């Protein structure tokens, strides 16, 4: 589904990604862990199309297409979704109405008819229930006045509405209490299928008890330095990242 090869990226002449490789296939869940400042959010932003970064080397192919050449909105319409670490508040813009526009722009891009008002409202009801997002919150201004947990649930609600092929969750678990975490994980697990894939970026192994990954990768200093099965997350939790650093020095 997505193949990242030797990706190098700078921000303001500072190298952040330094030769990152990753391949994710349909039906898989990958977890990316790593210390603060390793470049996890940078990777997510580059995949979603944020323009502040300079790609100096490498390639990203998404379903066979050159992702880095695509506009942000076309990436979304082709099925890439980023659940933001820090979702923005947009006063005055109704969450529901902007999602209807988003769905219809996606449909138009794919040569489909717009969604009917009735089908749309049914979809809103179904998906807001999935993430236990109050229908009132769903129709308020985007994230305005939402608590941290509500913002994260709203991200998963939007993901559920847009049914992406590849979802990237950037620290969606940070700051969530255990109930909210279960709700979010349940949302992700319900949406999982053989045709889509998920990249879960997290700091904490805890999330991976609920969203069980097929692979765990360690992102450190701009590269994936170690990959393994889900048990790797437990090992990281136990030993911390210093252990990885030492391994790197030895190598």
């Amino acid at each position, binding site marked *: 589904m997505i193949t990242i090869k030797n990706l190098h990226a700078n921000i303001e002449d500072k190298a952040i990604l330094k030769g990152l490789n990753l391949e994710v296939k349909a039906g898989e869940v990958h977890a990316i862990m790593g210390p603060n400042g390793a470049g996890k959010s940078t990777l997510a932003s580059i995949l979603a199309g944020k323009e502040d970064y300079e790609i100096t080397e490498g390639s990203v192919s998404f379903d066979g297409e050159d992702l880095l050449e695509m506009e942000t909105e076309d990436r979304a319409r082709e099925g890439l979704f980023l659940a933001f670490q820090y979702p923005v508040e*947009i*006063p005055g813009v109704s969450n529901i109405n902007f999602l209807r526009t988003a769905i219809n722009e996606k449909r138009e891009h794919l040569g489909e008819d717009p969604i009917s008002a009735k089908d749309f409202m049914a979809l809103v009801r179904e998906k807001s229930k999935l993430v236990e997002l109050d229908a009132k919150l769903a129709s308020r201004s*985007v994230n305005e006045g939402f608590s941290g947990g509500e913002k994260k649930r709203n991200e998963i609600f939007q993901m559920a509405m847009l049914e992406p092929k590849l979802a990237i969750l950037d620290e969606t678990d940070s700051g969530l209490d255990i109930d909210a975490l279960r709700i979010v994980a349940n949302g992700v697990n319900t949406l999982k299928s053989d045709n889509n894939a998920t990249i879960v970026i997290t700091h904490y192994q805890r999330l991976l008890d609920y969203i069980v990954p097929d692979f765990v990768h360690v992102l450190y200093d701009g590269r994936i330095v170690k990959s393994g099965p889900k048990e790797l997350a437990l090992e990281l939790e136990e030993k911390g990242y210093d252990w990885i650093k030492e391994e790197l020095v030895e190598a």
Partner: protein
Amino acid sequence: MNNNLKFITGLTPTKLSVNTAAQKNASHVLDTTELPTTRTEAWKYTRVAKIGKIDFKNEASTVTSIDDKKVIDSPHTLVFVNGRFSKELSADTFPAGVSVKPLSTLDGISTQEEFEGDIFGALNLAYLNDGLHITIEKKAVVEEPIQVIHILKGEAQLSNFKVQIDAEDFSKATVVQGFFSDDASNSFVNYTSDIQVGVNTHFTIEKIQDEEAGNFHIGTDSVSQGKDSTFTINTITLNGSLVRNNLNIDVIGENCTTNLNCGYLLKEKQHVDNHTVVDHRVPNCNSNELYKGVMDENSTAVFNGKVFVRQDAQKINAFQSNRNVLLSDNATVNSKPELEIYADDVKCSHGSTTGQLDDDAIYYLRARGLSKSAAVQLLVSAFIAEVIAEVGNEDVKTYIYKRLNERFGWDINPEDFG
């Protein structure tokens, strides 16, 4: 006659029966005052020198229809072309409790007599073409709006136009004003109003300014509010090269509410200047000012809002806000909210912000699949919807959204924003 005012030498003084004291004072102002320059405090950011260079005429003209020069469909529409009353295009029946008379049919027109150096006010009176006197009778509750349309037509025409409104005690009414032009260029409407809002009266003006580019609009609304009254004016400026709006509100009765809302949506080289003065002379009143602008290309906007709270005017709540969104690096805003408070038990606030749209919000919306232009449109619409929501008449709102679509390509679904 003053050299600087040669732009009016081609005009004939008013033939209306304006009171002589006012006429004398107006001539005196015109004889002794020069056109304001940017060194004049009240005109610091608005250059009117262009007006001074035009050799204005004031010719009668006609339009065949107002199909595309009206804000709403209303059987109570009055039409003026270059300041002159158009009998053919105007209604002659009005709702119960409303009487309407062109100023040219009145034997005596009483107006303010002092101009305090206000050259455009003096010009308006000394060369007054025509206008209207509208009376809303005591206790009349008028549901259907009265629509007053002014159309500028032709090259280098100057129209001096006045609306007088007497909203008598306990009445309720709305006047929709539409300022348009028809094949006009270098033309100038110089408008004034005298508005008396009676005791316990609710009076609303919905003003649409939509003259073509290349024309000038200077207007002064003077309002006096009696006790327990509510006065609301919603101004939406959609076009016109140079627009200056003065709102002078004297709140002389207690327990009044004053609402001044305005949206200006500008592009090209449009310049819009809003000057407001709310004078709280008595206690226990509220005033709310919401001025919001969306500025594209090389447009410029000025906001100068003064609120006076006199010494004995306790328990005043006065709020003033001017917010602007710049869609281009070449658009500029000069914003100056001013509070002058001489009473101690008041709640007043003012705020002014000018900035670009939030890049993070645009990126967020694009990351959900909206095109950049759809994202911008959504953010701009959300921003300006707050002002449009204040417009009480649904048909006026429809007109505004239609024109925003025509001018900016914004396809706004009003239901999305309320």
